[in-house]
């Protein structure tokens, strides 16, 4: 028997993942090209800036969500955490807390919420769906209670100005995506922690037998997801100039949809950082394009649904044929 390695006909997944991301980028580009032709205002610098701003928040949520979904979990609370965080940061700023400290406290609150989720899952044995749904419900209540159903007006100009400005011609909000995505990429794809996340999602028993602390990875995944959501809350508060507990309603579904469009499997262990990013911007581009083309709002919903099917379908085709 020969001991050399015979090359097999099975294509290595690594390359394939890369190609897969390319397809999605291709679909996004195609969308952009069609829109550039259909409407003159699409390909203007101003609109691209708007587009980048519009997609950035869901994109960051989607990245956090991806960590959780890779562990075969789900985080329904992110929208509520966004809303709650706008209240926290707005309240702190109005109380005169300096911006950096207000932001840090808000992120810490987010982290704490995520740790609570992980605690519920790991220690109390609750399904992720339930514990995050419960937080979703409760957090909105707490936020509404704090604000008494109204909005907290942020009078700190420096804070709100940030969301409007650009750096090197790119909106600050999009830079936030870059700032989050790069470490997220390193974490998920280049560090051993990322590998452990996949292992936990793929086969928690195998991960445990390999000495991976499954609870720790669950804490990391949910902690990051909620912290990213808190970060988005800060961005949203800056963009809207208010804190309001009902904001971010339904964003969890948008984030999960971006994640799944980006090729993440809800059964865990499959997913990337770039996929959800592209997924989020595909959704943002569809909305932007529909607005620019002044599509009737009702038709806009129908078209969004159809496009989601079409895009994911072509992706599936591509994946199957490799």
């Amino acid at each position, binding site marked *: 028997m020969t001991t050399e390695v015979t*090359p097999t006909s099975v294509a290595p997944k690594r390359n394939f993942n890369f190609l897969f991301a390319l397809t999605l980028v291709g679909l996004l580009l195609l969308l952009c090209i069609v829109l550039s032709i259909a409407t003159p205002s699409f390909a203007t610098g101003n609109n691209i800036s708007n587009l980048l701003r519009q997609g950035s928040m869901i994109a960051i949520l989607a990245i956090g969500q991806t960590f959780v979904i890779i562990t075969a979990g789900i985080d329904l609370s992110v929208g509520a955490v966004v809303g709650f965080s706008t209240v926290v940061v707005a309240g702190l700023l109005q109380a005169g807390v300096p911006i950096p400290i207000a932001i840090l406290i808000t992120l810490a609150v987010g982290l704490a919420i995520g740790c609570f989720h992980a605690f519920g899952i790991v220690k109390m044995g609750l399904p992720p769906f339930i514990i995050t749904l419960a937080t979703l419900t409760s957090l909105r209540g707490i936020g509404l209670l704090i604000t008494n159903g109204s909005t907290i007006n942020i009078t700190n100009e420096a804070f709100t100005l940030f969301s409007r400005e650009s750096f090197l011609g790119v909106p600050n909000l999009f830079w936030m995506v870059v700032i989050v995505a790069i470490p997220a990429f390193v974490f998920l794809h280049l560090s051993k922690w990322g590998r452990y996340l996949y292992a936990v999602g*793929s086969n928690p028993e195998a991960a445990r*037998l390999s000495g991976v602390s499954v609870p720790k990875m669950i804490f990391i995944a949910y902690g990051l997801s909620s912290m990213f959501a808190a970060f988005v809350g800060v961005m949203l508060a800056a963009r809207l100039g208010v804190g309001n507990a009902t904001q971010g309603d339904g964003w969890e579904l948008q984030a999960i949809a971006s994640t799944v469009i980006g090729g993440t499997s809800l059964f865990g262990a499959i997913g990337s950082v770039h996929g959800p990013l592209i997924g989020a911007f595909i959704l943002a581009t569809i909305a932007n394009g529909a607005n620019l083309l002044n599509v009737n709002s009702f038709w806009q919903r129908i078209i969004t649904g159809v496009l989601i099917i079409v895009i994911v379908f072509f992706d599936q085709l591509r994946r199957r044929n490799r």
Partner: protein
Amino acid sequence: MRSGSPDASSNADAQPILELRELEKRYGFIQALKPASLAFRRGEIHAIVGENGAGKSTLIKLLTGVIRRTGGKIVWNGAEVELATPNEAIAHGINAVHQEVVLCRHLSVAANIFLGDEAVKFGLLQKREMTRAAQKILDDMGFNLPADILLGDLTIGQQQLVATARASLRGTKFIIFDEPTAYLTRSEAAQLFALIRRLKDEGVTIVYISHRMEEVFELADRVSVLRDGTLVGTRNISDTNDAELVALMINRSLEQIYHKEAIPLGKVLLETRNLSGKGFNNVSLTVRAGEIVGLYGLIGAGRSEFALSVFGRNPKTAGDIVWQGNVVDMRNERTAIDLGIALAPESRRDQGLNLNLPIGLNINLPVYDQINSGIVVNAGEEKRRADQQIKDLGIKTPSRNSLASSMSGGNQQKIVIGKWLNHGAELFIFDEPTVGVDVGTKAEIYRLFAKLLKNGAGIILISSYLPEVYELADTLHVFRDGHLVGSQAYREKTHEDILAEAIGV
């Protein structure tokens, strides 16, 4: 009963590397392992044998920190240890190749080999280094596997080899193999044995679990026997024989394992004409009523793919399937089942079982069409049929309502078989039917084969265990690289001839 003499071997005075004192494990009311005391000597190969569900895997899981003991002590190198977590076991240099592959399908082979022990530089994974290192390890062990492929793309046998490579890397002092050859063919097994001997030479203590007696006699220095959770004896391999071990295991003697009757061959049931599909090419063979057609070959030779195509699971790309004289379009599994073909697939976890469902449901899944009264399932018949198979195959379970996942490996395999015996068919395709099944039950299953044949059925028996196909098959076909390379009638050639054909030397 305990192995009496402290014993004859030369390093008798040496301190045992690992000692169990009244070790025990309960699952609720089930006592999987009754208090057992046993000492493993430094550098020995210690085999453990026993019936399905006797507690072998349980013992192994206790030693590797997978599950926690409910009583007793473990002494490692003279000091009492907890072995409460897998980490602790790994830290001592204890590792195992478990009976069911416990690896991550979504990660590459290299990532699995190094999982938990990654090479990191500046916080970044050294993927290329690890792939290279993993490839070298695999090559050194003589395993013909690429390190950069996803684990999920490998067959179970290949996955088992990856698990072996992984364990050898961590079990620097003590490695346990739980039925490592179940899915391996002779040549891969030979490589594994070479590896085990090499490890022994390096001073590693080996525990080897198998249902194949000849492997035990080929490898082991000593052997311990478990029966119903009780350690019934330990023997020096030189002081014992096949019959004694089997008698210890099943508490009675077994005259004959391979049950073969002369059954007259009947009409041709199945004929494949130049059948091709994914993984196999141009395969022509026939199966008659009363005949066992054996398919032998190395891992990945294409036998399972062939079977899946015949069963309508995978589409053929060329050729014809002829069923009792008629060319049939095997559209899907249903078509095959309705024609009277049954397939007990090779991977019990992936294809054979609904693990988180009750045994009874698993056994009856193919027959629910037949046991309805009105619109509801006939519950009495459902119970009767499940209990029938549990009884016939000696499936060791408290109830037909227990989940399949709580069964020992061999008992799970019996469920896969029982499911199709329950259904009945004219042609049975058994793909590795006796993987992980104990000797007593094997004999039982072979006897059931004879019964099926007498009732006019035909059998395609795919096995990587040469003695099995060799002894049982009326016609033996050898697959290599997806082609039929040799066919012979019953016992025309020797084991060596057949092996040579399969390897292609």
